[in-house]
Each structure stands twice: as structure tokens, then as C-alpha cells.
């Protein structure tokens, strides 16, 4: 479904991602593990078209994304729930969700449907639907960001550290939600620090270090790997 071949990304002279190969098959949950600054977000931004790859090919369903603009990429079915959330702070929760469905703006009914779905997943959002997004707490905002991404009904959803700053209870729920979304048919590419929880739901994982893939394998393989255990799961 999504295929990265030999992708490198530069910030001016600094190469943040080196020659990465990566593949996501339909229906999978794939997780990117890695320390801070390993380049996970950079990869995500590059897939979404916010950054441009300096070398390599990015393909989605057989078509190249390299030259596509971010909005076209969203239209073709890749939606990112980004680090830092990137909500519209002075718009209400409801309006934020509506904007999430921007690519489906012609289908009013479908939007209502999706919104109901999101409210089921995150009841707190329904409670706060008329509040400004900017006044929500960190965790609430994170939920809104995921909800907004869901509104676009993506084929492939990119989740950049969705559990960051969330209470354990919510984190658990969050991963359940991700699993649910996945079983409903959305393919998921996930970046996480929380390797334990992530690998539990994932099919496959890649480990990043200093901008390059150092290890890849199924979640079981990775779980079994001692070094991974030490570095990302904790004792």
C-alpha cells in the first residue's frame, strides 16, 4: 500500500533521515520505534508532503507521492495526526471535526455519520463540542486531533505519538481505539515511544536510530529482541 524506497530527508544541510526503506500493507498496523530525534516525525511529515524527500521514492497504492502537494495527498487517502496536534485553536471542537472532513465536504450526511462515530469513541469531545479547541487540556486536544484525522476517513492513517501526555487510562483506551479503527478497515502507521503498548497491537515494527532503520521485524520478533526490550520497553 505504502512504500518508501531509499528515502532521505534534509533540513538545510542536516540530513535527518538516511536511505530509509519501509513498507506498509493494507490492513496492517505498523509501528515506528525510536528514541527522540530519531527521525520518526520527519518521515511522517515527508509522507504527508509537508517536507520533501531529497532522494528516494514514496509510493502509495502504486503512485508516486513525491511531487504531490499535501492537500492532494490527503485527498488520496493519507491523513496524519501530527505531533503538536495542529488543531484550529479558536474554532470549536465541532468545527475542528468538520474541517477534518474537508476532503469530503460535498457529503454532508457522511460527515454527520463520521462525527457521531468520533463522539462514540471520545465522549468527552461531545461534551465539549462547543468549546474552543484551544481551551481543552492536553489530553483532550490529543483526542480531538485523532478524531479530526478520523473524519477524513483515511485509507492510511499516520499517528505521530498519539499517547504523548495522556493519562494511563486514556492511553489504554487510545490503543483500543486504534485497534478498533484498524479492524474497521483503516491501515495504520504509528510512531511511538510507548513500545510496549504499541507492539501489542502492531503487526510489524521498524526501529529507528539517528535517522536510519536499524531493525525491522514482526512485533513478536521485536518483542523477543533483548536490546529492544532494554531500550524501549524498560526493565
Amino acid at each position, binding site marked *: 500500500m505504502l512504500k518508501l524506497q531509499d528515502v532521505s530527508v534534509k533540513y538545510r544541510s542536516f540530513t535527518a533521515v538516511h536511505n530509509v526503506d519501509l513498507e506498509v500493507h493494507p490492513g496492517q498496523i505498523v509501528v515506528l520505534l525510536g528514541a527522540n530525534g530519531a527521525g520518526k516525525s520527519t518521515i511522517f511529515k515527508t509522507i*504527508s*508532503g*509537508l517536507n520533501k524527500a531529497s532522494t528516494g521514492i514514496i509510493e502509495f497504492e502504486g503512485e508516486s507521492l513525491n511531487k504531490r*502537494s*499535501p*492537500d*492532494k495527498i*490527503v*485527498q488520496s487517502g493519507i*491523513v*496524519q495526526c*501530527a505531533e503538536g*496536534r*495542529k*488543531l*484550529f*485553536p*479558536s*474554532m470549536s471542537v465541532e*468545527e475542528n471535526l*468538520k*474541517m*477534518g472532513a*474537508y*476532503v469530503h*465536504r460535498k457529503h454532508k450526511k457522511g460527515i454527520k455519520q463520521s462525527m457521531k462515530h468520533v463522539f462514540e469513541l471520545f465522549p468527552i469531545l461531545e461534551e465539549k463540542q462547543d468549546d*474552543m*479547541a*484551544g*481551551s481543552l487540556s492536553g489530553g483532550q486536544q490529543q483526542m480531538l486531533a485523532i478524531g*479530526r*484525522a478520523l*473524519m*477524513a476517513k483515511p485509507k492510511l492513517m499516520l499517528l505521530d505519538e498519539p499517547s504523548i501526555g495522556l493519562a494511563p487510562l486514556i492511553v489504554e483506551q487510545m490503543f483500543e481505539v486504534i485497534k478498533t479503527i484498524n479492524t474497521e478497515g483503516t491501515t495504520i502507521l504509528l510512531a511511538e515511544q510507548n513500545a510496549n503498548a504499541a507492539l501489542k497491537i502492531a503487526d510489524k515494527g521498524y526501529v529507528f536510530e539517528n535517522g536510519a532503520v536499524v531493525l525491522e521485524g514482526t512485533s513478536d520478533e521485536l518483542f523477543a529482541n533483548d536490546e529492544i526490550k532494554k531500550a524501549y520497553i524498560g526493565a
Partner: protein
Amino acid sequence: MEILVQQLFNGLTIGSVYALVALGLTLVYGILHIPNFAHGALYMMGGYITLMMMVQYGLHYWLAILVSVIVVGLIGVLMERLVFYPLRHAPPIHDKIAAIGILLFLEAFAQYIWGADYQTMPTPYGQVIQLFGLTFTMQRLLIIIAAITVMVLLYLFLKKTYTGASIIAMSQDRDGANLVGINTNRVAMLTFLISGGLAAIASSLAAPINLVFPGMGQLVILKAFVIIILGGMGSIPGAIIGGYILGFSESLGATYISNDYKDIIAFILLVVILSVKPTGLFAKGGH
């Protein structure tokens, strides 16, 4: 009493013009965070183009305005593409200076093409109407009606259409807008198009009661800035209400306080408001 009503009407007329100009300014500010000092030059270009269309090509007033809206809108778009887009990551001071560069250029350009002198814009609505001892001219009524119509349409556009909402969304988070599939470049251009169009409408409406000359933009631009901070920068209702507040304060201030100091009144009003409420009257909470 009669004087009061007459002056309220005068304030309403001039407030309508101010509000239109301020709207364009606040729209661009809200979305791209650019205080566009060249907006006054767009206003001036609008006046000249309408005038040229009427005098040189014999177009009807409304048709001329339409052409002017399109042309000035396009100038706005060009400005965005050539200047503000490359500067989108630069600190805000840069935008200001770049805008001043454009301002200087456009004024010199107008002077080059149309000469430095005052010109008069004819209007098909020259009639004078006397009612209850008050004087209205058709053109002034037209200014008020047209301005309010434009503002209502703009409001509906922003609130009720997805395209409008995408402008607002982008004003709050550019990356976020990108991520939900909004083509931010197109929205930025659209915003400048609307902003330029509003400036052209404002000047085409106002020109028949004043004159067309290269410096005409300077008459309104400073006031427009006062208005948009008065109303909270980036706030659409703020710009409209601010426009009318300024219009009334000028006409009533000139009548009941002092004509010589009426400009100061507006500015002092602003300083007082900002001293009490440092983010303007209609600033939005949260960020």
C-alpha cells in the same frame, strides 16, 4: 437634532468605507499574520482602475467596479505570490518593510501612468435627496447599502461555506489546514484576492465623494489599522464594528468636540481601549 441625525448619517457613510477597507486588511492579517501596509495602495489602484474603465473605455459604473475588483484582486494575488509567500518564514518586521516597498512602487506606478494630479470619478448616482430636512445623496446611500451587502455576503461566505471555513482554519494553523487537505497556497491567494477586491469596492464607492489621486490610499490606511486593532486583529466583526465606531467618532467628534482634533479623538480612543484591554475589543480567547 437635525444636525445630530445628519452627522450620524455622515458617520455611517464614512464608517462603511472604513469597514470595507479594514475588512480586507484584517482578513489578510488573520490568515497570514501580515499587517499589509500596502493595502492602501490597493485601495488607490482600485480607484484608478474604476476611473480608467469609466472614462477611457466608457464602461458603466458597476461594470467598471467589477473589472476593478478583479484587477486589484489579482494584484493582491501577485503580491502574495511574489513577495509575501517567499517571506512566509521571515519575522513579521520583514513583511512590513516589504509591504512598504510595494506601497512606494504602486504609488510611483500610479503617478507614472495616470499623473500626479487629482481626478474626479463620475457617478450615475449624483442625485440629491432631501428628506425631513436631511440631505442624502444617492451615492452616499449607495455606499452604505453596498457596503453592508458586501459585508453580509462575506460573513455568509466565511461562516457557511467550506471554502470560507478553510480560510478561517488556515488563519489558526497553517500546517493543520494542510493536514486536513486544504491547499494552503490556494487559500492564501484567495484571501488576497478577496482583500484586494474589498479594497477596490471601497475605493470605487468612495471615490465619487472624494477624488482619485496617488496618495488617496494614505487617507484610509492608517485609520484602517486603527480599526483592526480596535476590533482585535484578525476579527471580522471587530473590523466592521471598529469601522463604524471610527466613522461615528469622526463625524460626532468634529461636531461636538473639535474639528481640528477629530483625528486625534479616534487615536486617543484607541490608545485608551488598548490601555484597558491590550488585545482589542473583540480579540478571541485561547491560543
